[in-house]
């Protein structure tokens, strides 16, 4: 039942945004409410997965909810809620703080003309488009992580490309059209290759077990895996890693990522970078479990480590030469997905670290992108060289952005420190000391360049023409909430999260 609520809330929100025209603010408010509802549903599912009351998916179920799916669903709905609450079309003051419950506020303070005057209304057509595609985007991602059928998962992931590509060129410019075209073409081609891999695995299944109606469901596939042909499964996995790796932004298929993530509006980049990449990694992790049952894990591990190290290296070195802060965040995503890929190849502890890293990265990266959106709104530039004095100009955004970047470079007490530490530990424990060393060097490179860029942004004189001071509104509180989540994940790693991760590993590592 809960799963229906999880799927229905974004579906209803999408339908509402399509049907109500012209756009009204109540549509935006309703879609925030529905996003909160689907977050509650996914939390409930996670609780069920933990308490063991959830009935394990039978072979014929359309949806499956195990701990791993629930974990991803919580991340997706959380980021989607934050993006929805900070998105356009809710009425915003000049700092971009959406004024939720505006009528209440107006009622409370009858004299609020200055609030009224400060409002800069978003273009209704754009708000409508944002609401439609943001909700559709969330829906496709939720379906992707909860579908029981590998091919349906593929259909949902392909659909994420289509709906998010439309959301990128928010204001049509040469750069944004170029970014969406690259994104659409590269990801469509990549995902087509993933389907070729799925067909390969299915054809092997058909040739050993015959035509079964639900042969593409995870349980059946995984149980049948030991009898599949290793040669064929290796070929299938290569296709799948290239395909879903394109979606996950792994090098060398990452070329679309910095463009798309830097050109998209902040709320869309937050969802793309925070959770869409995680969905790609989810698909790879699930398939790895199937292929590992057919082939010795050494094969998949070697592939993931190679591609992961390459991604971390490309991400880290691209950070050094970055001149734009949104692209800087995008390359940092390439680096972090590389770390996740390496983690998946390092046994149970590595998988634990990788999944925890996905969670941390989802929160940290979406928060950073949303803050970058606020900085862009104030400074009107994405160039690092033209942003300075952030702490003085934006007393709330500045420290939060600093917290975001310090999380991303892996400083304690934030969450990513723990997951990176566990990852290195896993590498050492599985006798991959050289991997630990290489990762450490690359992380140091990323650390130095990110902190250097951050320093330039935080201190120095505020450029002329940039307004100083910032009101504390909803947006700041929501983003501050993200920072607190990161602190909690870093300081005490709540037992429910750890238990959820532990159970997910059982799904992935036999």
């Amino acid at each position, binding site marked *: 039942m809960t799963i229906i609520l999880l799927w229905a809330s974004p579906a209803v929100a999408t339908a509402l945004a399509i049907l109500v025209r012209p756009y009204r603010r109540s549509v935006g408010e309703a879609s925030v409410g529905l996003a909160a509802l689907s977050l509650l549903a996914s939390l409930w599912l996670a609780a069920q997965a933990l308490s063991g009351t959830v009935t394990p998916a039978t072979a014929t179920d359309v949806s499956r909810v195990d701990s791993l799916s629930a974990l991803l669903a919580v991340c997706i709905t959380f980021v989607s809620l934050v993006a929805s609450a900070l998105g356009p079309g809710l009425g915003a003051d000049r700092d971009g703080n959406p004024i939720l419950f505006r009528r209440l506020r107006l009622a409370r303070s009858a004299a609020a003309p200055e609030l009224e005057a400060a409002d800069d209304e978003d273009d209704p057509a754009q708000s409508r488009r944002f609401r439609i595609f943001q909700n559709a985007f969330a829906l496709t991602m939720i379906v992707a992580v909860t579908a029981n059928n590998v091919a349906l998962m593929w*259909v949902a992931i392909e659909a994420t490309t289509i709906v998010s590509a439309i959301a990128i060129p928010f204001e049509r410019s040469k750069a944004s059209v170029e970014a969406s*075209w690259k994104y659409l073409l590269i990801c469509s081609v990549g995902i087509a290759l993933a389907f070729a891999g799925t067909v390969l695995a299915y054809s092997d299944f058909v040739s050993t077990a015959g035509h079964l109606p639900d042969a593409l469901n995870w349980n059946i596939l995984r149980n049948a895996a030991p009898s599949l*042909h290793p040669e064929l499964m290796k070929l299938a996995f290569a296709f799948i890693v290239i395909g879903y790796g394109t979606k996950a932004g792994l090098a060398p298929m990452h070329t679309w990522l910095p463009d798309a993530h830097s050109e998209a509006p902040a709320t869309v980049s937050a969802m793309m970078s925070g959770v869409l990449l995680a969905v790609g990694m989810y698909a790879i992790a699930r398939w790895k479990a199937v292929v590992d049952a057919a082939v010795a894990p050494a094969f998949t591990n070697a592939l993931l480590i190679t591609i992961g190290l390459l991604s971390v290296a490309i991400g880290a070195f691209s950070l050094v030469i970055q001149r734009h802060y949104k692209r800087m965040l995008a390359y940092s995503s390439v680096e972090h997905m590389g770390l996740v890929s390496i983690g998946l190849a390092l046994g149970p502890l590595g998988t634990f670290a990788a999944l925890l890293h996905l969670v941390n990265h989802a929160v940290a990266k979406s928060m950073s992108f949303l803050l970058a959106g606020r900085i862009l709104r104030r400074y009107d530039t994405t160039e690092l060289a033209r942003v300075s004095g952030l702490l003085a100009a934006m007393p709330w955004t500045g420290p939060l952005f600093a917290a975001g970047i310090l999380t991303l470079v892996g400083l304690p007490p934030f969450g990513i420190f723990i997951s990176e530490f566990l990852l290195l530990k896993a590498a050492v424990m599985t006798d991959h000391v050289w991997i630990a060393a290489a990762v450490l060097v690359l992380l140091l490179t990323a650390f130095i360049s990110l902190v250097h860029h951050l320093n330039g942004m935080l201190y120095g004189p505020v450029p002329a023409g940039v307004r100083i001071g910032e009101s504390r509104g909803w947006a700041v509180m929501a983003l501050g909430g993200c920072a607190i989540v990161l602190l909690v994940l870093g300081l005490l790693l709540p037992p429910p999260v750890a238990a959820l991760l532990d159970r997910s590993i059982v799904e992935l590592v036999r």
Partner: protein
Amino acid sequence: MDGLFSQLVVLGSSGMLLTAIIILWRRGVPAYISAYRWQSWLLAALTACVGYFGSDAGLYGGAIALVLLKGLGIPYLLRSMERRFGAQHELRPYVNTETSLLAAGVLVLFAYALARPWMAVSALPTRAGLPLAMGLLFVSLFIIVSRKKAITQVIGFLMLENAIALLAVVGTYGVPLLVEFGVFLDALMGFLVMQIFVYQIHETFDTMDVEQLTRLKH
């Protein structure tokens, strides 16, 4: 019976591969569109053929859907797009014709090498079509990376989709119906969105050469 069946499959698959290679040596976009249309009809015929010999009535429905969507619908949309932009020619592709044809040959050889383990374990009478489908897949990828016009890239992508549909038909006698439906929907939506962006590229850049799309670096 099986002999005739596998010969028909090889014939159809080779025909599909050939239509992709046509794109490498023709220059005009109208020729590309008719090549794609021929390829889609061949794919539909092959699907029906597998349905007949494999006695799977569901595949007939798939064949009809293929004809309607890829044989008639998408070529019609491509043609109206082409008409709106005036005559489009792929005058100076990134890779010239001779090298392209050589590369296509190498790619097909590579596909045969890659498909060998698959051929070895498959007992289906259609297995001879597998390397050809893989070859078509690689040649379509090559079209996408070596050609400059956005519309040619779209056609390359559509051919890539045909290649995967061919792979599914000859490798597994078709994927389950629900999946088929989802894939169809995605193909259609993906094409429509790409069409929107081709128009946008044309409007914002005044050209369809993706060579102009070099604003974003590092």
